[in-house]
């Protein structure tokens, strides 16, 4: 007999494992001295994010995350790395002089403020994990997109079109 509390324990273990991978990957993205390693760590972070979306029972977003981010965006990044002829291997010239000295305090301050607010604001609110079929179902999601959020969707398609044309114009040789 599988109890709800057991599921929650399993979920928590899963969450912390994935979260650890994500945080380590993220740190590697910003600290690695190898551009390709940084890019691959980013893949780990994004994959972890997709897994977290599954824990949040948002399957469609998770799948999209894998397809778009890991499938398309990462390939773009790797192309970017190659086309800008980054050194494959160690490159000590990836960071700003004194960047860490400025970045670390700013990041820590931001994190401190956010963590304080979150802990104070949400204390021990829990996520509903009832077996409601409608939650996270792709059908209700599509209903939302094509009714209430149709106008932003429409605008978004123009943004994408503009981005495609813009990218071509910017990157072509002549």
């Amino acid at each position, binding site marked *: 007999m599988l109890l709800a509390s057991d599921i929650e324990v399993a979920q928590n273990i899963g969450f912390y494992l994935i979260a650890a991978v994500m945080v380590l990957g993220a740190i590697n993205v910003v600290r690695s001295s190898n551009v390709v390693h940084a890019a691959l760590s980013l893949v780990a972070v994004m994959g972890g994010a997709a897994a977290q979306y599954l824990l949040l029972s948002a399957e469609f977003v998770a799948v999209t995350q894998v397809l778009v981010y890991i499938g398309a965006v990462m390939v773009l990044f790797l192309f970017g790395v190659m086309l800008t002829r980054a050194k494959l291997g160690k490159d000590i010239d990836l960071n*700003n002089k004194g*960047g860490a000295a*400025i*970045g670390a305090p*700013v*990041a820590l*301050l*931001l994190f401190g*403020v*956010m963590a*304080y*607010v979150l802990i*104070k604001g949400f204390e021990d609110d829990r996520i509903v994990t009832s077996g409601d079929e409608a939650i996270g179902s792709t059908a209700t999601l599509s209903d939302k997109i094509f009714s209430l959020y149709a106008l932003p969707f429409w605008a978004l398609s123009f943004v994408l079109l503009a981005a495609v044309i813009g990218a071509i114009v910017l990157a072509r040789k002549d």
Partner: protein
Amino acid sequence: MFAESTEAAGWFLENAWLIPLIPAVAFFLILGFGKRMPRGGSEIGIASMLASLVIAAGTAYQWVQRVDAPVAEGEHALARGSFGFARTFSEEAAEAGHEVAPVISTLDWFDIGRLHVSIGSHIDGLAVTLLLLVAFISTLVQIYSTEYVRGDRRYTHFFASITLFSAGMLTMVLAPNMLQFILGWEIMGLCSFLLIGHWWEETANSKAALKAFFTVRVGDMGLLVGTAALFALFGTMEIGEINEQAANFAGDNKGMLLFAAIALFIACIGKSGQFPLHTWLPDAMAGPTPVSSLLHSSTMVVAGVFLVARLYPVFHVGLDINVAGQSFNLIAVIGGITVLIAAGLAFVQDDIKKVLAYSTVSQLGYMMLGLGVGAWTGAVFHIFTHAFFKCALFLCAGSIAHTGSHHSFDMKKDMGGLRKKMPVTFVVWIVSTMALMGVPFFSGFFSKDEIIDSAKHNHYTVFYFVAIIGAAMTAAYMTRATYLTFFGKARGGAAHFVHGHDDAHDTHDAHADAHGHDAHGHDDHHAPAHHSAPLPFAKTDSSWQITVPLIILGVLAIFSGYLNAPALGIHWFEHMTESSIGAGSAMSVPPPPEFSWAAAAPGLLLVLAGFVVSLLISKAVFGEKKTALQGLTQRNSLLGAGHKFLVNKYYLDALYENVIVKAVAYPIARAAYWTNQHVLDGIVNAVGIGGKRTGELVYKYVDQGLVDGAVNGSGATARGAGGALQPVQSGKVNLYGALLFGAAAVGALVLVLVNS
């Protein structure tokens, strides 16, 4: 009969928002397709203005029916006058008139918190008057312009701007709330800049455009502040609600209302060219003449007067107008000063357009004076009549320059003796001048006389004298201008025109350059000079596109006054508009005084005296016979000094540029320069090479700072700001990012600390 049910107010009344929308759309059409049209886009502009005019006329017609509808069933008699409904002054009738509710139709624009903003139309008597006026005059001016700016290199842009200009004014006139009002107001500000600087290749023109823009902008701050104050006070942007609440104002927050009224009035001072911000108006003559005429008759400058008329309860209650024992208030004082000062300046101008410009300033002063003494109807009616005759006068000036004086506006050098050759222009000019002077039975008489009468009747005795003296001065300077232009010996460009038309064109270019007239640009369209056909009965006058609008305006300069002629017992206009001030208000605007010829007599006598004296002096000074008066200002030092004082516009420009600009802008510029030199070079290189120079500058400015405390304070602030902003200018993207996120973090921290 229309308007049986209160819901259906009529198609035109409910769809009046089309009136500004059509020219606004036309503006984009002209910009987009104008250059490809056979007539360069002017046909789109004229068609849109005609469409607006038709809808405005329909609106006016339905408004008249709406006002009269309840009267038909009421018992109190409204005697039918020869031009509509004349009203007997019984109290019942007054009440009946106040009950006509405005027709408001709106669309939601946006919501911010408790502020709900709509866009649409607010139709009442005042709005209808201005709508009809603006649409009508814009149409005529555009027709006139097709000939006047023909061949100009920015012909299409001219029509685009002038169409948008009308759209802006119409938007403002219709505004149901303050935000739409500001929208229209600002569109006009922008277009006036574009149009005044239409011939921007000449530095003087672009400077005049900038001056107009910035001077008006000083006042515009007042509009924003005043609107904010009204919102804080009443919690609404709707003009109708503001008026109602202000009229019934009983709170102890009177200071706030006073503040709002003063702030809004500062906006009116800027826009309507009232003293002391009137200096931009004469410089605005740099624009093409049709622009001047539109600007000075029905749009732009009228906007300020319109704002006071629109929000009259705010001013009336806020500034204690018509309160027993009060014989002064801000609006009347500013209006009175403007009347006299501008009329004085009009005497010494050689440029015909500048005479008219100062005359406009002076007449706007009358309107403000009227509003200040409680003569709301008189002031609004003066807007109405003044628009026709002032537009006619400007278009006459343009016609003279276009045909008679070869693009010069200089009355002393290039005009004179034109009455025989330009009969249409001459007759229209004379008719309009008589209307402007306030000669009985011309339109200006009825409106101006009501203002003057009310000033006396409402116990503003000082302003009564100001008004009649102003009227005499008006008569005098217009006589001078008329004499110089149409009588006496033909001079300069006019001589070429009068004595032989053929050789004139050859000498024209050199001629125009030789004059070097300063602010006004001469039109540079003389190269392909094929003019259209003139009217058959005035072959030597300007072509029909110019003379037909002139004739129409001339006719209206006479007859528009009969819509509200107290002298003949006609109060139709008043009846149509009186509900605009606020329905059922507790505000006590005194009824206009009964007209009597005895009361009008002193003013009329002074006008006559002004006319006669000015005619005699003009004949003596500018006539062909040698007299002792000629060159008097050169010989008599006292008169010369007075003349110089006036020619220099009371030294107000000098005051602004030398004293105020130097005192305010110069220290700021100096502080900024000091920040630049001292902080950026100084701190960065303090130990290094710049040390010595920095030391000198520090010494110098510490010294200066001791003398001038204000500069010192602003300098200290600037040093702090400069120091903090220094990293921003590093050009390093990462640092920008750090600053952005750091600021966000600190901001969030502050919010957390404040809220916990």
